């Protein structure tokens, strides 16, 4: 078992109304010094078995075709849990 995390964020040039709303609220909370907030999605996938190159490549495909719409979003795929990486290296 390993955890792979897919982070999906709106492309920088795309309007992020949620992030903006959060940022605009900050001064009211007494918070200064944050010049930008972007809000995206985080997917945590629990993968059965080892996470090898092939599995990562498939998760990359999944992110590209399903978890993100690459017309407006970018994504990154990371293996998170350390054991997983070790497992994959076996």
């Amino acid at each position, binding site marked *: 078992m390993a955890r792979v995390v897919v982070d999906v964020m709106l492309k920088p*040039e*795309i*309007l*992020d*109304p949620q992030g*903006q709303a959060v940022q*605009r609220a900050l001064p009211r909370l007494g918070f200064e010094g944050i010049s930008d907030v972007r809000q995206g999605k985080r997917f945590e996938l629990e993968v059965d078995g080892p996470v090898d190159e092939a599995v990562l490549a498939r998760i990359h495909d999944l992110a590209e075709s399903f978890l993100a719409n690459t*017309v407006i979003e970018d994504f990154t795929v990371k293996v998170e849990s350390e054991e997983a990486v070790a497992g994959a290296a076996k």
Partner: protein
Amino acid sequence: MSRTPLDTVEHAAETPDVELPWAELGLKKDEYERVVEILGRRPTGAELAMYSVMWSEHCSYKSSKVHLRQFGEKAPQSDALLVGIGENAGVVDVGQGYAVTFKVESHNHPSYVEPYQGAATGVGGIVRDIIAMGARPVAVVDPLRFGAADHPDTKRVLPGVVAGIGGYGNCLGLPNIGGEVVFDACYQGNPLVNAGAIGVMRHEDIHLAKASGAGNKVILYGARTGGDGIGGASILASETFDDAKPSKRPAVQVGDPFQEKLLIECTLEAFAEKLVVGIQDLGAAGLSCATSELASNGSGGMRVTLDDVPLRDSTLSPEEILMSESQERMCAVVEPGKVDRFLEICDKWDVIATVIGEVTDGDRLEIFWHGGKIVDVDPRTVAHDGPVYERPYARPDWQDALQADDANKLPRPQTGQELKDQVLRLVSSPNQASKKWITSQYDHFVQGNTVLAQPEDSGMIRIDEESGLGVAIATDGNGRYAKLDPYAGAQLALSEAYRNVATTGAKPLAVSDCLNFGSPEDPAVMWQFAEAIRGLADACQQLGTPVTGGNVSLYNQTGEAAIHPTPVVAVLGVIDDVARRTPVAFQEEGQLLYLLGDTREEFGGSAWSQVVHDHLGGLPPKVDLERERLLAEILISASRDGMIDSAHDLSDGGLIQAVVESALLGGKGARLIVPDGLDAFTLLFSESAGRAVVAVPRSEELRFNDMCGARGLPVTRIGVVDGDTVELQGEFELTLEELRRAHEDTIPALLA
């Protein structure tokens, strides 16, 4: 060409030989030459950006203009029309000092690429058109068409589109009160996402998109401008025109309904204080469109400093700023003395507002950037003098064969059992099934004035709490009919929407339309388009309902395969007192069911032929506009005088579809008999136009029959509201439970 120095007007005059990427921006060679001729020099990059977007098919209607003229030329005399075609939306007088504006628009292609945002921004755009007329938006409708219901891609597109329409409209606080959902393989790669909106104002509040009064300020307010929806302008913005790096600028925009809600409230507050001289929403072609239209519709010229436009992305070039289609922006023209108050109201609503220019004495639109003049044009040449095409059109060679393939000759059910099976297949087919799974994702209640919403024949909104004055709207279109005969198909779409409005008790007043077709470069498509417009214009003339505005969507086509010609027609009606509205649901057992109109053997393009035989051929039902008018008069009188308790118009699926819907909604069954002169099959499935089924309390039977008789409308008693089954005597019986499952389970099973 290097981008330094700035491509000013002066620079353009000095460098006549510079090649501009007009083709990449979608201009034809002769169109570019026209621009050079108009300016008497080569355009600057910024000017080229403006001309290219404003002369695009989408903004200039260059292929459709010559045909659309008929809506004006054949417009019926109507006292109700306060503002006609040409403005952001038409305005209709509905009495008691109220005016109503409404319009339907398409957002087809973006919704295929990014269903949620494409559909959401479609709603945003049409609502801004309504605000720009001075009205408070009060409702939206959404005629939708998708590929085959069981196609995997439909499962991607439809839920996203529906969530987007709901997500945006719900957040704006606009009740969704009607629309359509149609499935057909012809829309597979080209779903149709049309969205309509209605707004209400007092007569004196009507606003127009024009900039007059030299010295008046031009204020841009709403969202900051970003790099959305720019497409071609990025080429102009790239370092050199010949470096062909892919555009970084996305073609799809993300909407912010919250920002739009604030835009609505602050705009209405500014209207209420009479601060606004002219106003324009920013939609397609963004600032290019808003500035050139405001200036060309006004008396003077306009000067704009582009550096003052608030940006989301500081790297945008002036060309990109001019072309950006960032959502949730408006442009207002305000007298200098009122600017402070206007800005104050925007500030109250946390809306960014900036003076970006002013109205001038001259007749030029001048735009400045970093101190240089980058645009100097006659705004009329940008906004109104775009190219006009007389595209060749020809009746396709397959049309005769299609019409000869007569649906009336298809094998018909022979026994009661076969009839029953086919009824179940019909009411459970995706097109005829309940759309509740979809429409329950839309808020119907917000604003507290919804009298009728889906699945009623038309949506109805109360506009005056004291008098009960209300308006109704219905949208209809049947691409199958239009494919068989585009002239008749367009008229049938109008007939159906007109009938739907009248069925609820409202008087039809005016029309908006959204014309969805394939490529105008195909003469067969162009013929369909020309025929549909001719049909709609003729029918509007005859029914006395002027077209007040609308939208054309062309190029809905993948390769050679065009969608069915799909004119979608919206009819707006008025009702003096919404307490008199007629619902679809059966109200009381024992009430008598009457069929109004003539039923003929008409199965061409019918739901029955599609569901049972997967067939499309023959001729659509006969159009009889005088009959539609008479039927409408009877339905309106009967509602006003309390002679009927429920009514449902007959359209696709025929009588049985209508009876099943009324029964399920009312939770009461019906016993039907086959009247003399008709057979059971024709009674149940024919799609003859000009018909409705009404439920009459026994106490009103005589009066109702007399009225129909006196006015010459055929009326046939076909049964009674009764029990918890739908029964055709001597043929079959179906329990409401069985029917409910058949009717309501289909869509969730396909999509949930």
